């Protein structure tokens, strides 16, 4: 019995070397942010529609103009996200506020382009499909999440295997 428990603790330490509390608490806040907006407006807000709705300010393409009714509040939502993270950086963890990523710029840029295409073609991102869609028990979102999760794992493992670090 004690051996089983010790094995379980060791397994947890192996799977979660940095603990789980900040992940779980952070996740609850992410869900709470969505919930606050939903209760007031019935809108399940995702993060990636902002990319297209914001392009409607400068482009007359029909694909972007369809998001015109929501583009203003999506800007406000995104500004809120940026400032909310800034509040975290200056209050909870000032020392963490000083880091910048070591992931190479071309990975961010090329990855960003693929994310821009993929989230919009695929009807959602980690918040739209992953949080709102899964929370809605939507079969399209389960398929979407499973797809991008498995492909991302394969890609990240491949990138690491060919020696691209960081």
């Amino acid at each position: 019995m004690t051996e089983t428990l010790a094995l379980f603790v060791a397994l947890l330490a192996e799977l979660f070397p940095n603990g789980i509390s900040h992940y779980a608490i952070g996740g609850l806040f992410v869900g709470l942010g969505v919930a606050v907006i939903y209760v007031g407006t019935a809108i399940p807000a995702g993060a990636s529609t902002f990319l297209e709705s914001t392009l409607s300010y400068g482009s007359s393409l029909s694909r972007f103009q369809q998001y015109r009714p929501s583009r203003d509040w999506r800007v406000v939502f995104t500004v809120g996200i940026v400032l909310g993270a800034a509040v975290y950086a200056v209050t909870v963890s000032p020392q963490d506020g000083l880091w910048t990523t070591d992931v190479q710029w071309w990975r961010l840029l090329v990855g960003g382009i693929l994310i821009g295409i993929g989230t919009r073609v695929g009807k959602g991102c980690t918040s739209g499909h992953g949080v709102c869609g899964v929370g809605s028990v939507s079969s399209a979102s389960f398929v979407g999440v499973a797809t991008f999760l498995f492909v991302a794992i394969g890609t990240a493992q491949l990138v690491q295997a060919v020696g691209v670090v960081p």
Partner: protein
Amino acid sequence: MSAEHEQHPLFLPLVFVGGLIFGFGLGFSHMAQPEVVLSFLQFTDFGLLFVMFGAAIVTGITFFGVKQFRSTAPLTGAVYGRRLKSLDRNVVIGGGIFGVGWGLSGICPGAAYASLGIGNFPILYGIVGMFIGAYIQGFWRSTRAESTAPTTAAD
């Protein structure tokens, strides 16, 4: 086609507060740091599962629970519904393209906005990339829609 926020004076303040909480959570969960997301995808730290499913449980309870108390939202009058999208080929194709981008960079849209707020300025490469990608697919799909239905006006 009026803007959605014109419906109630508290609409935009509420969206802003929701965004603040959302962004705070992304910072707190370390998802704004690409290295942490990559450590999940490379199987050295599975904490991301707690973030995504923890958040989904909260939204799930809210989406299903709020309907027990009222049928329409106070600020919009809209009926409470679930986030349902039609399941077609695009979900898999787009999800696959997004997956390659996510796995290559360790960033996703919401976490990238949050990362900017933390002061991680190199994330701008990723955010600029996302706008370029969104534009590419929008341009392609808009022109394709026009060539197949030339007389249909945009909505």
